[in-house]
């Protein structure tokens, strides 16, 4: 009897192996947010970081990383100021408020290298070489010189995983300048986004700048996000759907800045 069972399994080991492995893969895939799976991911990142880091470091050294970093820091503040000034052309009162904001917005920026990107460009997360030992926390925003990139969604000892704005599950509270129209930004494929439910009464034009609204607990206000490309009337007749392009080129992210709390 036992021999028959063993023979059965041996004769069908190909089919049994396939079914077993497909089952295991499916379980892992559907449990991606499970803490054990997350721990495995970040553990792998921590293990691989020392291997990958020298390669990334050498690559960046060749591209004069240090100079780039200093210039990038300056550009971030300049682009932030530009977005502020774009919204302050009309009223001195608002200008004073924004200058007051400037006082408060000297962010503590931490530079981080991208250790790993996906093979498939539709997978929208990055493995960064900064972790808990660098004071990185979950939900810390990340950006580069062009604008907001996303946020930290899992931290390890020396690495962290970042969720990008071009992730199907990502949402961002934004404001369109100069009208001040607010909405929730959602990725729309490629480097595009959409913002739904913008009232018809708001004057939004192609070319308008989209910045973070500051209403979120995660992202500070006035960080540049994208530019309006076109508007389309919503089926309800009262609102518009705004389509736009991200300022960040998500295909070429090699170094980011984490805004520490």
């Amino acid at each position, binding site marked *: 009897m036992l021999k028959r069972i063993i023979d059965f399994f041996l004769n069908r080991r190909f089919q049994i192996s396939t079914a077993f492995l497909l089952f295991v893969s499916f379980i892992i895939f559907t449990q991606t947010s499970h803490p054990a799976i997350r721990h495995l991911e970040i553990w792998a990142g921590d293990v691989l970081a020392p291997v990958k880091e020298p390669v990334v470091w050498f690559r960046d050294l060749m591209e004069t990383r240090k100079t780039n970093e200093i210039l990038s820091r300056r550009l971030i503040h300049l682009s932030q100021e530009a977005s502020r000034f774009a919204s302050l052309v009309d009223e001195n009162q608002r200008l004073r408020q924004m200058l007051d904001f400037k006082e408060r917005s000297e962010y503590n920026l931490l530079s981080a290298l991208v250790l790993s990107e996906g093979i498939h460009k*539709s997978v929208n997360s990055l493995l960064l070489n900064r972790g808990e030992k660098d004071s990185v926390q979950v939900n810390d925003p990340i950006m580069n010189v062009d604008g907001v990139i996303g946020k930290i969604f899992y931290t390890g000892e020396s690495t962290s995983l970042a969720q990008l704005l071009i992730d199907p599950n990502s949402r961002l509270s934004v404001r369109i300048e100069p009208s001040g129209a607010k909405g929730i930004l959602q990725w729309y494929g490629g480097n595009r986004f959409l913002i739904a439910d913008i009232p018809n009464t708001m004057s939004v034009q192609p070319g308008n700048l989209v910045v973070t609204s500051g209403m979120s607990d995660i992202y500070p206000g006035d960080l540049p996000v994208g530019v309006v490309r076109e508007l389309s009337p919503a089926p309800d007749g009262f609102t518009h759907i705004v389509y736009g392009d991200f300022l960040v080129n998500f295909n070429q992210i090699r170094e980011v800045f984490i805004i520490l709390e």
Partner: protein
Amino acid sequence: MNSHPYIKLLLTVLGTILIQFFFNEVLDIQGIRPDLFFILLIYLAFRLSPTQTVWAAFLLGILQDILFHPSVLGLSPLIKTFSGYILAQLIHQSFLRVRVFSTISSVLLIFLSHVVFNGALFIEMPVDFNYVLINYSLPEFLYTGGLFLLANYFIPLYPETE
């Protein structure tokens, strides 16, 4: 059993993994990168037993997700294990002994794997299938498929014809 083919195979596997890991950015063309692991899987399928093929496919998929797509861990092993199963079945049926069929079937599998991978990711997005196909699946397929055809020109799929 002669261990020489297995050593050669092991070195090929290691080499491919290292190239994909260390030179991923170098291989980048407008944000599109080839799936070298899939090309490797096809070659392994022609050199291993069916059971070995599905295990190799699963391990390659897991490794690929850990190295490159940790946020969707499990998707690559799912697709690669299934692809390994299909490949092993076709090879076992001797259908793929004709070179042109083996090449066409492999290219078709590369295409399907990219369509399924991107389709699974975009399933809850407000974008239509054609957009995903044209902007993601097709370019990735053309790159990976092109590299496979290039490799196929120089390295035969069947070890006995090497």
